[in-house]
């Protein structure tokens, strides 16, 4: 478990350094995910070394978002001032994105499977 956390934090620290060094427009953690994927692929890191720590964090992922959500309270007035355009756009657009993304992935995946078998 400690080994896993050591690796995760080391990869995160490396990615944060790279993001700042190259001024990349993405969060260090997202680059860290790519970097760890690469290290696993190259065999530098083995899955059993990080599995326990990764499972512990990922099975409680929801908890980690709560403080950021509570932070929204500071800006609720901004939302309230423009509640109509914000709520209509937010709700409908979320459904549109789910529908478009899911349907495109599902139909192309099905087409791909059809081609493999026929």
């Amino acid at each position, binding site marked *: 478990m400690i080994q896993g956390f050591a690796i995760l934090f080391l990869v995160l620290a490396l990615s944060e350094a790279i993001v700042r060094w190259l001024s990349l427009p*993405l969060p260090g953690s997202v680059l860290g*995910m790519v970097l*760890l994927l690469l290290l696993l692929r190259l065999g530098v890191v083995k*899955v059993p070394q*990080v599995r326990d720590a990764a499972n512990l964090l990922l099975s409680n992922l929801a908890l980690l978002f709560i403080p950021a959500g509570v*932070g929204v309270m500071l800006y609720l007035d901004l939302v309230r001032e423009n509640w109509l355009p914000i709520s209509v756009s937010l709700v409908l657009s979320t459904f549109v994105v789910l529908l478009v993304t899911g*349907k*495109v992935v599902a139909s192309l995946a099905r087409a791909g499977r059809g081609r493999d078998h026929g």
Partner: protein
Amino acid sequence: MVDFFLGSPLLGVAMTLVVYWLAQILYRRLKHVLFNPVALSIATIILLLGWLEIPFESYRKGGDLILFLLGPAVVALAVPLYERREEIFRYRLPIAAGICCGSVASILSATLLAWACGGNRELVLSMAPKSVTAPIAIGIVESIGGIAPLAAAVVVLTGCLGAVIGPEFCRLVGIKDPLPMGIAMGTAAHGIGTARMMEEDSFAGALSGLAIGLNGLVTSGILSALFWIFG
């Protein structure tokens, strides 16, 4: 004594854990989507802070400790992705196409709807990256001229909405497999949607995590290009 708690991270950490623990118990008992543990915990803590007159800055000392673990958690998404890499590689085209279409659909629908309902330029621009993970969305909004705190609030609310009823909506419209549902949830509702997916199915959760990163890149690319052309 009050001063001790207001100045200590203990308050925020204990409050978050206790509220989330109770919200999970309630959710398991009632099994109703409206009792989504994350959304319920956020709402409860906001109400408690107001009722007990605890300043957000005091809550934040502990909240930041929990939030800090989000960094390694996002890195950890690489593990389930790596374990299912063959399947993901086989479906790389549907995944890439789905995320690109989702990103365009998100930008168009969010901005057009906000504009149609009378939103001004700043508001419309703040809605544009609503489905992107907060740190990327804030960067985008700052560069295209929206209101960053408003964008952050919109991003979190979008994530909560997706987490509360996203999978139910997907099943309703016939999106049932882990592959399309995971990608759709990550593209539409970023991390909070991913957390919900993770509870249902670890493969769908990992796909959702992949979609957060890719959608962030695609959306920031499209919006930066549009801003550069039409500025």
